[in-house]
């Protein structure tokens, strides 16, 4: 038993060690906000097809956590942030080039499709019996959600309903889809995924909603800045249709 376990362990270590495929391809690493996880891989796949010999690798997470990783020396060529705050942080250390806003987004309330509580409008999430999940403070979608609650004058009541601070917006979608929570606030694009778990969207009125910018830049120290520049140009040009199809707003 013990020997079998040990053998399995070493096999796993070997597999992990072999999984990085060597090649003469030009490759860039893109660290991107988790709300982009549904669209950037599509854009990357099309880019790779139209630019033979290139590979775009993605890693998704909260912009806050990605910025911290970059500041701690993560090897990265391109950073796509859901907030200006975390792009500013990377701009100050280690530095960036070609910073551009390439898309914008807005917030919605999501509820399970069953919507057992019958929530119908944004203000309803302040009802007494609602279990609300948000992204943590610091995570862009979490910060934006709290701003929207403040603008609507329901911050205190809604925060009293908060049962969990999730580490990114995707985790908020999962908690609501699993009906563990009654409502969450995420980006409008988070429900437009094709393989999305079943959630229903409730719009947040324009007067309290935020239009949030996504910016992209080449991170200083990139050894593939030419390819990084090409990929950013693609996102601003031919790739834009993929973003708008997923519900992102144009940069201006």
């Amino acid at each position, binding site marked *: 038993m013990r020997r079998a376990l040990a053998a399995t362990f070493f096999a796993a270590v070997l597999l992990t060690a072999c999984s990085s495929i060597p090649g003469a391809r030009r490759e860039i690493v893109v660290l991107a906000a988790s709300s982009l996880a549904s669209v950037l891989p599509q854009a990357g796949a099309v880019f790779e097809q139209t630019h033979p010999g290139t590979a775009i690798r993605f890693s998704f997470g909260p912009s806050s956590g990605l910025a911290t990783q970059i500041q701690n020396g993560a090897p990265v060529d391109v950073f796509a942030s859901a907030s200006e705050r975390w792009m500013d942080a990377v701009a100050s250390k280690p530095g960036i080039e070609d910073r551009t806003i390439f898309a914008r987004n807005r917030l919605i309330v999501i509820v399970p499709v069953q919507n057992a509580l019958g929530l119908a409008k944004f203000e309803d999430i302040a009802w007494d019996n609602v279990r609300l999940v948000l992204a*943590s403070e610091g995570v862009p979608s979490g910060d934006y959600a709290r701003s929207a609650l403040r603008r609507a004058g329901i911050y205190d009541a809604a925060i009293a309903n908060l049962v969990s*601070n*999730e*580490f990114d917006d995707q*985790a908020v979608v999962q908690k609501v889809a699993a009906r*563990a929570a009654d409502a969450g606030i995420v980006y409008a694009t988070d429900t437009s995924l094709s393989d999305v778990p079943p959630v229903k969207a409730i719009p947040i009125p324009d007067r309290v909603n935020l239009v949030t910018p996504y910016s992209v830049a080449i991170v200083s120290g990139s050894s593939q800045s030419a390819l990084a520049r090409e990929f950013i140009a693609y996102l601003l040009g031919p790739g834009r249709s993929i973003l708008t199809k997923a519900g992102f707003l144009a940069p201006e």
Partner: protein
Amino acid sequence: MRRNDGSGRATAALAVPGLAFVLIPLVALAVRAPWSDAASELTGPAARAALLVSAEVSMGATALSLLAGLPIAWMLARTPLRARAAVRAIVMLPMVLPPIVAGVGLLEALGRFGLLGGLLARAGITLPFTTAGATVAAAFVAMPFLVLSLESGLRALNPRLESAAHTLGASRLYALQHVTLPLLRPHLFAGIALAWARALGEFGATITFAGNLQGRTQTLPLAVFETLQTDPGGAVLLSVVMLVVAAIVLGLTGGRLIAESAR
């Protein structure tokens, strides 16, 4: 017996890389921690709340594992059982599963709309997003350590000693109290220490099943992860706290007793 032919020294030399592998990251935490911020970071409400939640959750989970695990260990060690290997494999599964899978399973089973969700609701029990839920998640992953320790303890224990006690007129309870439990104690404590340590470090099942809310379900590991997103220095300080807490408890109880039971 001590041997002085140099093989001891050779073994020690071979053990050094492994020891360094374990120690260097721990030393790095202590070296890189921004100690000048320690007072403000560690006495802040977030750190204190996480410490309290972690204490409650890890001790509750250990108690729960002991209650649920002791009968399983007894059955595995002492009763004729054809499916023993299968039962043991089931008990061990949570050690091998990614904790996130455990969390998803708990949600589907004990969540509000899970298989047993209705039953729990009627009993007035809510687990997701509660401290009780975090405790259940930690117990789920910690219990195998207790069961395995206790089973090996019960196996090592010679049943003839208990029979002898019976022959000499001891009641079952008296034999349990004065023969079985004292002999089992090192394994019991080792199992408790291991299960507690696993519960203290629990992350994936907790975030998936119980979420992350300060003072309710945010344990130390969750606090470390959340802090790491925006304040790496603070995360290192919190990690040092976890390290110290774990070292103290293992130093006081576990280390010696685990070694004893492995002997």
